[in-house]
């Protein structure tokens, strides 16, 4: 039986990141954890601080995997991200916009 609680799960991206693993594989592991927690919690907050050496493909894979499984509405409303710097946030924001466009079509407006 699924138990739904009004609560937030907090994940640290760094816990799913290995220096010796492909960057995209680390993103996929984080996405799996976020998907599992979105099934049990009202919202999931992911903290990306401390990550180095990641690219747009990291965020493409992370947002893409979550979006393909749970849909774009969940990406917009229940997944919350904390970034270490403005630059990291800008990088992730461009990926999120691109993923949302690919999920919903070009007319999508994103926050």
């Amino acid at each position, binding site marked *: 039986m699924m138990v739904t609680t009004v609560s937030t799960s907090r994940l640290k991206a760094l816990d799913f990141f290995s220096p010796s693993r492909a960057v995209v594989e680390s993103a996929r592991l984080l996405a799996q954890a976020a998907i599992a927690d979105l099934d049990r919690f009202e919202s999931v907050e992911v903290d990306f601080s401390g990550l180095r050496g990641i690219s747009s*493909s990291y965020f493409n894979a992370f947002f893409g995997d979550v979006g393909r499984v749970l849909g774009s509405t969940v990406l917009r409303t229940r997944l919350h991200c904390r970034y*270490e710097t403005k*630059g990291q946030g800008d990088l992730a924001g461009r990926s999120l916009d691109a993923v949302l466009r690919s999920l919903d079509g070009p007319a999508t407006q994103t926050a």
Partner: protein
Amino acid sequence: MQSETVPLRQFYQAVGDQAAPITRLVRRHMEINADTEIYLGVALSEAAQNIEDHARSSIGGVWCARYLSGSKQVRVAVVDHGIGIAGSLAALSPGIDDVEALRRVVRGGFSSKSLARNMGLGVSNLCANVKHLRGDLAIVSGAAAAVMTAYADPIRFEPLPCRFPGTAIFFRLNVIDPD
């Protein structure tokens, strides 16, 4: 401070700590904060990821970096021996020439979609991040070059008289003395 080199390194995949030796080289010669370090890491990681995803390079990629004490610059080169940007985009845009292919990927939002997760952001992010670092950048692919200088807009796109067998990315950062 003497000149210093990060030796040539070959890779086939964009891996987590790949850029660390180059980042450390830059950090030894420049005062950089977390934001700057992330911009630099992203630039390097985008270059490596593009090689993994699109280049089909038999040798993968190679990169190296050098701090030059005379000119007070850090210079980075990332090179592959693959099909080039136009070769990669040709699957979706048959007949596209090297200059137009470079122009499109630099602008962003245009991808060969070698993989489902490709969104066409890599090269445009690379350019944006080097620009943010106030660096100069040159990308050579096939018979075309894109040249970006720190304080000049726009990026120049030029045909080349000879053909480079793959894609090469060069950028240099000027070391700014703390005082």
